[in-house]
C-alpha cells in the first residue's frame, strides 16, 4: 500500500484530540511523511472534501444534526474510521447531562440565542456508524496515537490496553489514592493507557478515558459508598466523561440511588 489517504475531522467538542496530533512536534514530519493528508480543516486550508479516504480520524461527539451528516459522509468516503478522544468514543463531557431534556438545557444555557441552532442528546460515533478503531482519552495519549498510526500503516489494528488504570498504577508502584488517601478514584473501572497520570500526582482517576471493557460499575459504586462518598458525588463523577456508555445504563443509577 502506498501512502494512505487520510482525513482528520472534528465534530462538536473542544478539538483537543486534533490538537494532540499537532502536538506530536518531534514526530510531526514523520507523520506527515507517512500519510497523504487530504484534509485537516483545523490545521490546513484547501483540503479535498470529496476524495475517497483510506483512513479518517474523527474527534468530538454528535451533538448537532450537521455532525451526524458529516459523520455519515465521512464514513462513506473512508475505508477505516478511527474515533479519537473520549467524546468520539463515549460521548465525553457534552453528554454528562443527557438525563435533562435538551430544550430545557438549551434554554438555561443560551436563553433566546439558543433558537438559532438545533441540538440533540450528545452521542458517540458508534451510535451512528461503524467505528473500526477507538482511541479514547481526554485528550488522546500521543504514544497511543503514534502506535495506532504505525499499526494502521502496517495494515493492522493496534493492541491498545483494555485493562484498568489500577494495573498501570500498580505497575508504577504509586500509592493507592482510593485506599490510602480515601479519594473518589475511578481507576478500577477506567481504561488504562495514561500510565496512571493522575494517581502519579496523588490525584484520583476521574475516568477521563472512559470505562474499561466489562467495567464492574456496581462493585465500584459499592466500594465508594462504603468509603463514605455520597451518591450525589459518585453519580457526578461516573457521568462526567462517558455517560452514554452501556455500563452506565439507567439501571446502575437507579440501583445506586436506592441502595
Amino acid at each position: 500500500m502506498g501512502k494512505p489517504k487520510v482525513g482528520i475531522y472534528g465534530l462538536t467538542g473542544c478539538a483537543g484530540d486534533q490538537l494532540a496530533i499537532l502536538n506530536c512536534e518531534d514526530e510531526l514530519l514523520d507523520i506527515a511523511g507517512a500519510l497523504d493528508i487530504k484534509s485537516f480543516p483545523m490545521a490546513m486550508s484547501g483540503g479535498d472534501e470529496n476524495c475517497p479516504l483510506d483512513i479518517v480520524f474523527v474527534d468530538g461527539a454528535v451533538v448537532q444534526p450537521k455532525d451526524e451528516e458529516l459523520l455519515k459522509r465521512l464514513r462513506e468516503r473512508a475505508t477505516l474510521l478511527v474515533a479519537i478522544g473520549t467524546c468520539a468514543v463515549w460521548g465525553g463531557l457534552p453528554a454528562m447531562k443527557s438525563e435533562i431534556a435538551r430544550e430545557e438545557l438549551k434554554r438555561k444555557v443560551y436563553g433566546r440565542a439558543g433558537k438559532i441552532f438545533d441540538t440533540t442528546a450528545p452521542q458517540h460515533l458508534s451510535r451512528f456508524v461503524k467505528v473500526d478503531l477507538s482511541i479514547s482519552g481526554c485528550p488522546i495519549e500521543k504514544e497511543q496515537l503514534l502506535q495506532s498510526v504505525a499499526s494502521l500503516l502496517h495494515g493492522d489494528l493496534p493492541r491498545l490496553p483494555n485493562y484498568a488504570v489500577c494495573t498501570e498504577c500498580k505497575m508504577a508502584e504509586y500509592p493507592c489514592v482510593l485506599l490510602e488517601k480515601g479519594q473518589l478514584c475511578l481507576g478500577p473501572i477506567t481504561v488504562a493507557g495514561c500510565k496512571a497520570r493522575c494517581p502519579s500526582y496523588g490525584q484520583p482517576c476521574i475516568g477521563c478515558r472512559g470505562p474499561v471493557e466489562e467495567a464492574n460499575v456496581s462493585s465500584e459504586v459499592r466500594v465508594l459508598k462504603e468509603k463514605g462518598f455520597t451518591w450525589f458525588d459518585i453519580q457526578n463523577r461516573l457521568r462526567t466523561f462517558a455517560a452514554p456508555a452501556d455500563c452506565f445504563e439507567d439501571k446502575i443509577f437507579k440501583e445506586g440511588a436506592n441502595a
Partner: protein
Amino acid sequence: MKIVKLPKENLAKFVSSLSSFGQIHAPVKRGEKSLAFGPVSDFAQIQLNYTRTILPLKKYFFKPIDTMFNFSAEKGYELPMEEPEQRNVFFGVHPCDIHGLKILDLVFSGRYVDNYYFARRNNAAIIGLDCIPDEFCFCRSTGTDFVDSGFDLFLSDIDESYLVRVGTSLGDDMVKATESLFRDIEKQDREKYKGKSIEKRESFQIQIQLQDLPGIMDLEYDSPIWEELGQDCLSCGTCSMVCPTCYCYAVFDELDLDASSGRRMRRWDSCLFKDYALVAGGHNFRAERSSRVKNRFFHKQRGFVSQYGRPSCVGCGRCKAYCPAGIDIVEVINKLRSEIRV
C-alpha cells in the same frame, strides 16, 4: 552455616559498606503511608520497621514492561542494549519475599529458561531482615515465615544486636569486608534468637490451613462462592501486579512510524483480564469474571501444588491489603473449608 552478631550501633556502617558490592536498594517511603524498594544513598532513608512494600522484588528481575528484542527489515532481530553489569544489593528483604523469589526462580528456570529474568536475578545480592506480622500477614500458614536459604545474609533482631546468618560466599565476603563490626555469638544470643523465633510464631493474627486445600477446592469447584467473588471483583489487576509469584506476561509489538521496525515487548498480565483467555476466532474460555477469579485461586492454591509440590502463595497479604473491592484470600479459603472457628 556461619552465624555472627552485628550490634545495632554498627548497622549503618555495615549497610554503607555494602555499596562497594553494588547499588543498594532498600524499603523507602512512597507517598504518605506506602513503601517501595528503591535505590538508597543514605542509611537514614531505609525504613527498617516496614511491613510490606507495594510491589515485591520481582519488579527488578521480571519488569512490569520490558523490551525482548528490537527488529527491523534491514537488521533482523537484535537483543536490546544490555544493562550495565552492576550488582544490585537488596537490603531488608522479608522472608515471604525471599520465598517469592525462590518460586519465581523455579518457574523461570523450567523447560524454557527465562534469560531476561536470570540476567538480572543472578546479579542480585539478597540481605534478608526479619519482621513482625501485621493483620494481613499469613506467611506462618504458607510456611514462608522463616527462610533457610535464598539469601546471602539474613538479619534477625535480637534486641541490642542482629543475629546474622551467612547464606553464601558472597555474604561471607560482605561480613569479612567489615569484620571489625561483627561479634561472635554467645550463649545469651542463642537463647534470645530462639525466644524471638517463638515470639514471632505466636504473634500471627491469622492462621489458615492450606494442607488438603487442593482436594477441598476440587470438591468446591462449583461452589456459589465463585459467583459471589465474580460480582465483587473489579478485574482491575491489582492482586496480580502486587503478587510476589504472579508471573504471567503478555507479548506485543511496538512499531515505529516506518512500519518496518520496532520492538517486541512484554508486560505483566493478569488472569483476571477479560482477554487473558481470549483465543483466535474470538473464543474465550474464561469469559465470565467468576471463572477468572476462580482460576486465580485455583492456580495459586491447587494447580501449582500439583506441578511444584507447594502452593505459590507466600502469605504476604498484599492481594488483601491492596484489593480495592476488599476481596480477602483468608476469608475465601476459610469459607471454602467451612471453617467455623473464624
